[in-house]
């Protein structure tokens, strides 16, 4: 009890202090600039009661999930394949590194003019944001597998399947999970970027329409939701990474 109190008191103070500061500053500035916490929450409740918030949230969530799951489905097997087939890895690692470092937002105008405004191009944006961290980290992990490990497995007459199950996958997975954590954060940026720059939809779209009609409370309400979502997803990513990295030093 005492330990819990000690642990959570600073967190509560920091959270409470920050929110109080937001409220006080918000009340003393123009509403076009900053709205206080209370007004933001009021707007949030309003949005919730009309059912719009749930609708927007689900729209964003399905976009995020589609792009992210596609990135995992493509990125993980491809990464593992590159891990095993050395020639393929050597052929592609440079390009994966380049694409990993490229700001993918720059491709949005091209996607827009090629594929238009629908759901697919938007999911493609999320996919592009998310897939390269997964690939890049998996390849990095594969590169760091000690050749001795494979040699030993081979000398014990390990078959291809056993080699994958016992050496390749367990060794690379922690790295892949680092990639997945990064991918979660990037996919969220991709989601908002797609909702901003392709067709306006979901929570990103709410920010856009609210800012265009000078509804600052609406802007803050949507930002608050996306912020909380970001924190929650980051937490999931960190836990996932920690879970798989237990044995990595």
């Amino acid at each position, binding site marked *: 009890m005492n330990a819990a109190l000690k642990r959570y008191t600073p967190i509560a103070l920091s959270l409470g202090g920050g929110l109080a500061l937001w409220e006080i500053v918000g009340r003393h500035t123009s509403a076009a*600039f900053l709205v206080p916490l209370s007004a933001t929450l009021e707007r949030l409740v309003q949005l919730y009661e009309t059912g719009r918030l749930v609708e927007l949230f689900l729209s964003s969530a399905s976009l995020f999930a589609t792009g992210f799951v596609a990135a995992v489905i493509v990125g993980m097997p491809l990464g593992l394949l590159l891990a095993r087939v050395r020639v393929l890895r050597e*052929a592609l690692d440079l390009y994966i590194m380049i694409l990993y*470092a490229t700001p993918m937002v*720059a491709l949005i105008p091209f996607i827009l003019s090629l594929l238009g405004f629908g759901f697919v191009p938007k999911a493609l944006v999320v996919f592009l944001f998310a897939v390269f961290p997964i690939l890049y980290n998996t390849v990095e992990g594969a590169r760091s597998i000690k050749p001795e490990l494979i*040699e030993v497995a081979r000398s014990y007459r390990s078959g291809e399947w056993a080699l994958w199950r016992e050496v390749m996958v367990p060794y690379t997975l922690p790295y892949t999970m680092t990639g997945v954590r990064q991918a979660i954060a990037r996919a969220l940026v991709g989601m908002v970027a797609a909702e*901003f720059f392709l067709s306006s939809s979901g929570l990103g779209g709410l920010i856009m329409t*609210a800012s265009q009609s000078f509804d600052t409370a609406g*802007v803050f309400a949507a*930002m608050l939701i996306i912020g909380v979502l970001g924190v929650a997803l980051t937490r999931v990513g960190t836990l996932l990474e920690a879970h798989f990295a237990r044995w990595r030093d």
Partner: protein
Amino acid sequence: MSLASALPAAQRSRIFAGPLLPRLIAAVVILGSWEGLVRAFAPDFVAKPSAIAEVLPRVISGAPFLESTAITLAATAEGLAVALLFGIALGVLMGRSLVADRALRLWINGFNAMPMIVVLPLMSLWFGYTGYARFATIVFAAIFAVIINAAEGARSVPKDYVEVGRSFRSGRFRLLFEIVLPASMPYLLAGLRLATGRALIGAVVAEFFTAIPGLGYFILYNSRTFHQNEAFVAVILLAGFGVGCDALISWGTRHYLPWYRRDEKAE
């Protein structure tokens, strides 16, 4: 003796063992299939390697491209400098003071987890469709990675170093500039690496959004007017810049801080 040198010479000199040839082949395959697909299925204006190569010399010697590049890079550097200055100050404060750390950590981590581009509409409300909105976006995009890494760096400074400094009656500023900051250099570089990438994204996105001159707008304008090949030159430059910064910083870490090895943390 390492395993690599123990491999039979024949195996090492095998033509596919060198990384250059597979890479070249991959490049030919990738660019070839891009070219082929676009020629077969896409309208004429869609970017393809041959056409990009054709317009490349003209674009990179043209005034619009050079001006856009200069504007965007200057804005990124400016925002990054401010983010570094304030980010390091705040991060060191958090790393060295428990009170500051407890008060701020929650918020810094929270903002860091937020997809930075959500602030764009707000920035354009606050600053209008101007360079200030871009500047603010870049600072917001970059600063949290700097703060987090600087705090971690300052926290990781070995106690002994600080104690030795103290016992030689070193003042607070000398302690900061001669012990804490140099000792947390690897963390600061890791923060810089993340921050540079994010600042660049922030700049491009802000230019898309506010339509102020710069590389982002150059891409937007050219791709909207069916000049995708020209627009793609700017994408190549951005990719090159991203890769170049990464390479420069990891080279710097290896060269100047050879004693340090650390996996890339928090993105």
